[in-house]
């Protein structure tokens, strides 16, 4: 019987494995190697040690600026998206009529792609700013808040749906018992609802965190980094290092590795937090 299965193993595994090797695993390993070399076409790589990593920070301030900009954007987005999504979810689980309709509508922006979203908001924000005689390219502050608004519009509906699912999983008796014990609305929220909602909160924080940190399409379409490179986030900076300048491929790859390590660190911390929470329950 076991031998019988072995005959079929390649049929089950091979197509996925070949595709996975070609588009992910080999490029990933080659990427790590190339970050220690200087190259323009991959085949002409010469070993330069850590030079690319040093150049990523010393050649210009673009990468560091992009890092701070991305970090600030991520913090503001994670807080605002989750707060607003939670409030919406809270209101939508109060048993109002039309709840389903509202939920459906709020989710729509999440289905629209980043490039299209970027141009939609470029129109709206430039329209508002034109009243003051300026546009998005005038100041990085406008670009920053533009991106935050865009991110909120895109993600609130998605996070709200996860919060709604979480809130619906909390047995109503828990809240009733709290009310009988004389807990007020806010007390119930803080000591009963929020602790029970922790799994949803962790998921939503993680999703908004990684989505904000890795954002590319919306950044490219809304500001493309303007003014100058002031609103350029990490992903866009890496892209421009590869394709927008000459002889910087090695530096671009080194930046990409650093970017990967940052994202991986987030994911690991997240995994830890989730695991420790699960142990408590």
């Amino acid at each position, binding site marked *: 019987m076991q031998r019988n299965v072995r005959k079929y193993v390649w049929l089950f595994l091979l197509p996925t494995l070949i595709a996975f090797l070609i588009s992910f695993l080999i*490029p990933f390993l080659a990427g790590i190697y190339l970050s220690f070399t200087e190259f323009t076409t*991959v085949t002409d790589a010469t070993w330069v040690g850590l030079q690319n990593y040093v150049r990523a920070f010393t050649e210009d301030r673009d990468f560091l600026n992009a890092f701070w900009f991305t970090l600030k954007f991520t913090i503001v987005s994670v807080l605002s998206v989750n707060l607003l999504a939670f409030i919406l979810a809270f209101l939508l689980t109060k048993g109002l009529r039309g709840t389903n309709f509202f939920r459906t509508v709020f989710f729509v922006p999440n289905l629209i792609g980043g*490039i299209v979203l970027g141009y939609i908001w470029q129109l709206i924000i430039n329209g508002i700013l034109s009243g003051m005689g300026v546009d998005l390219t005038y100041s990085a502050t406008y670009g920053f808040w533009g991106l935050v608004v865009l991110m909120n519009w895109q993600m609130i509906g998605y996070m709200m749906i996860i919060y709604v699912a979480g809130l619906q999983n909390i047995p109503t008796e828990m809240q009733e018992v709290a009310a009988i014990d004389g807990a007020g609305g806010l007390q119930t929220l803080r000591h009963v609802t929020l602790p029970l909602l922790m799994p949803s909160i962790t998921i939503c924080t993680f999703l908004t965190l990684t989505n904000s940190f890795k954002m590319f399409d919306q950044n490219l379409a809304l500001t493309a980094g303007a003014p100058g490179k002031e609103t350029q986030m990490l992903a866009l900076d890496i892209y421009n290092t590869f394709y927008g300048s000459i002889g910087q491929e090695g530096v671009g790859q080194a930046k990409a590795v650093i970017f990967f390590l940052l994202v991986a660190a987030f994911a690991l911390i997240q995994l830890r937090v989730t695991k420790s929470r699960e142990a408590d329950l």
Partner: protein
Amino acid sequence: MIVAHKKRWGILLTLLLSILTVVFIAPVFIVLMNSFKGQFFITDAPFAFPDAQTFVGLQNYVNGVQKIGFFSAFGYSLFITVGSVAVILLCTSMTAWYITRHKTHITRLLYYIFVFSMIVPFQMVMFTMSKMANLLGLENPFGIILIYLGFGAGLSVFLYCGFVKSIPLSIEEAADIDGCNPLQKFFLIVFPILRPITLTVAILNAMWIWNDYLLPSLVIGSRYRTIPVAVQYLQGGYGSRDMGALMAMLVLAIIPIILFYAFLQKHIIRGVIAGAIKE
């Protein structure tokens, strides 16, 4: 007394949510409105309704469709999305079933590598991957399907594995006794049971691939433009682009998504929740 209070509160809340709904829809509506205005009347007054002076009928749509070849972009997007999703469903479900049911050191390692690939950002592999695609001649709508299979494998295998674990072994053992070979067993018994998770995997991948910009722009962008690549192509220099055509193309890019959502709304929301919670 309390009932009256609750009722008033309810009305107030519904009113608030209705206002929010308008705010949420407004951006799309404003783009729709501007798609009927002449291109020089858009940037400065995007919130004004079209009037006798600014209304240009379907002119923007005609211009835009010609400029970016919208219908061929739509065709490529549809072909690549449907093709990739079909291939991903078929291949990753088989792989996931195999590595869950035949535990060896190798299959266990494979599982961890698939899961690992989910956290790697695209920028990490974009340059080397597009060189690889170039080297192997994958720069066409067929080749890119193979690339999407590789990139979609992580999440899809992960979701399928979680589901396969919950299927009782006894069902498959019954098939063994009846003399099914592994292929028959998979396609006649297992695959139909996977239906709910197949729907989730299909929706998550379809949403990603349909809206994906960077991967198709790097791999096939110079010859075959998908919708997001075509929309970005319309952006010439800042200020020199045709705003009217851009508005019209944004509308045409949104319509298929709204239709898709209208038909599959419940499944999409359920799929997105299931995907998020398991991630």
